[in-house]
């Protein structure tokens, strides 16, 4: 297990101490950590467990139950494609294939250049203007393979321009 960096440790310790007094504190803590680090490093589990007086197995069990939480570091951009029915009715299945082949990855994978991670999602509440995808915090409607390419071009330029590889996805 990779050790936490000093900065990661600070984030995790602060989340736990800030929120552990909340009733039902675990999900708020996990969200807080993932919002800041992009994922929940495995090495954080023991710290959370100690803070909440729970076992590491219990914390791991909760993390693994929820699709949203991830234990591996995502790429610079998290792309989520809606796989639910209203988007299916607008051709999301073909879009899904197109995006996968453009990126050269399947769901739950990250591109080699670490730019994009791909996840399925089941409804983004944009069902009147599907097919829908989400990139980071933003939803895009009436998506197509072509629009996706343009969007990706923009996003890669953005990262290069800023000259950094920090996590923009969340």
């Amino acid at each position, binding site marked *: 297990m990779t050790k936490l960096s000093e900065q990661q440790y600070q984030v995790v310790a602060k989340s736990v101490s800030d929120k552990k007094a909340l*009733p*039902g*504190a*675990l*999900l*708020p803590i*996990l*969200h807080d950590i993932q919002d800041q680090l992009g994922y929940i490093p495995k090495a954080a589990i023991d710290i959370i467990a100690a803070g*909440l007086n729970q076992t590491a197995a219990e914390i791991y*069990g*909760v993390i693994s*139950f*929820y*699709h*949203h*939480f991830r234990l591996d570091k995502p790429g610079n951009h998290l792309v989520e494609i809606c796989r*639910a*029915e*209203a*988007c*299916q*009715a*607008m051709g999301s299945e073909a879009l899904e294939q197109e995006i996968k082949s453009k990126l050269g990855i399947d769901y739950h994978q990250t591109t080699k250049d670490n730019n994009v991670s791909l996840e399925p*999602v*089941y*409804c*983004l*509440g*944009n*069902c*009147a*203007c*599907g097919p*829908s995808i*989400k990139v980071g*915090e*933003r*939803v*895009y*409607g*009436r998506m197509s393979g072509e629009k996706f390419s343009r969007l990706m071009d923009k996003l890669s330029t953005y990262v290069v321009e800023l000259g950094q590889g920090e996590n923009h996805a969340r």
Partner: protein
Amino acid sequence: MPVKIYIPCDTTALAMGADEVANIVEFQSREAGLSVDIIRNGSRGLFYLEPLVEVETARGRIAFGPVEAEDVPGLIQSLVAHGDFSEGKAFAGKHPLYLGLTEEIPYLAKQQRLTFARAGIIDPLSLEDYQAHGGFEGLNQALALTGSNGPQGIVDEVKTSGLRGRGGAAFPTGIKWQTVLDTPAEQKYIVCNADEGDSGTFADRLLMEADPFTLIEGMVIAGLAVGANQGYIYLRSEYPQADKILNQAIKTAYAQGYLGENIQDSGQHFDLEVRLGAGAYICGEETSLLESLEGKRGLVRAKPPLPAIEGLFGLPTIVNNVISLASIPVILAKGGEYYRDYGMGRSRGTLPVQLAGNIKQGGLVELAFGATLHNLVFEFGGGTFSGKPAKAIQVGGPLGAYLPEEQWHTPLDYEAFAANNAVLGHGGVVVFDTSVDMAKQARFAMEFCKIESCGKCTPCRIGAVRGVEVIDKIIGDDHREQNLELLTDLCDTMELGSLCAMGGMTPYPVRSVMEHFPDDLIKAVPGKAQQEQEL
């Protein structure tokens, strides 16, 4: 005086480019010397027109839509040339995207908006705007009732309204509230179910993004009604915009004395917090949701005990859907009878229907119960987006049946839908055109159950896995007859043996495909006959 321009900030408007449009409107009007005041309202729910840009005139708000970034310069020029707003005159231009007065757009004019009365009209974060449009009238009534009659008066009003839960199960809200009121406890909770996981639904999201104070008001009233002083909104993590808006609105409500201690000097106390889900569909089921709020895996609890008696942290809890709670203010403001006078049979009031999928004019249509599906999809919705004929309509989310054309004249009414082995659920209507392969849709229903099952009971956990396999065999013409029989048995087992409606209702869409679209299930397999010959 600056011209007031409204550009929505709800998720769908943003998904269609509303932020870019707002930026360009600001820039272009400055260039053109037009003084404007841009207001980011919530959407009216006419999503096919988003971004819908509205301009205030002496006659009322006029609309342009859908406005794309490149349309803005022309639009601003047209406003400069034809809209003599300083004199309070009407817009005289003939811009191609001009839609006339917003309120007169038939899609909106024909609706009966009670719960969504303010959506898209007001700035969702302006408490003054909210109050100017009837906000907190319900709370004032509730406070008056509590003073004269105790909390029972509020519960009675909700009972009179005939409101049934809009989250899907349609349980009478007043009866649920009565149970919580009658269960003595030091601490009780109001939990708003904002998990809105059903595909094809966005009513909760729109309400929270367009008029969040209505939900806050409804929850405060619920607290008064049953003696609860803590509320939680369990919001799905897929809705970051709603999260942002709700949190800001809650902050404002605290600052203005509508949340916290001694609400409006009444001596009443109510605290409210947003809690985020984490991408688990099952956490929309109320007991799974409570487990999740407690910081656990979202495993469904056996009922009884009902959450109304032993809910969050084992204490009496109201769990209600966003729309149920957001309908409370109008019920209190105008009286339970006013609300009850809308609707048909035992389905009282209005239902915000969500038109989605392959539809030309998708959006939110709030109407009294009783309108037909056909009326909604074809008169409001304008038919399919693709222009091909419609083939199937799934109503009520992933656990709802696919309705064939023969059933499209069914009125929107819980009982009428049940008579068709269908459900209204949360009011999501998803249209599919003739390119759909219904066998795939049946397979997806099982696949979705497999992905989202909480795993607590075997018929659902294992049944869904088997379901996918069996449907694959049917599609592949592998012992078709036997496998069709097996699928029927499997549906029976899941329906009868599952602990909750996830496993219990997944058979609805599957059976509807078997019953109404059998040809898709048993169509010839390309290449198969040839393969067999070669063998």
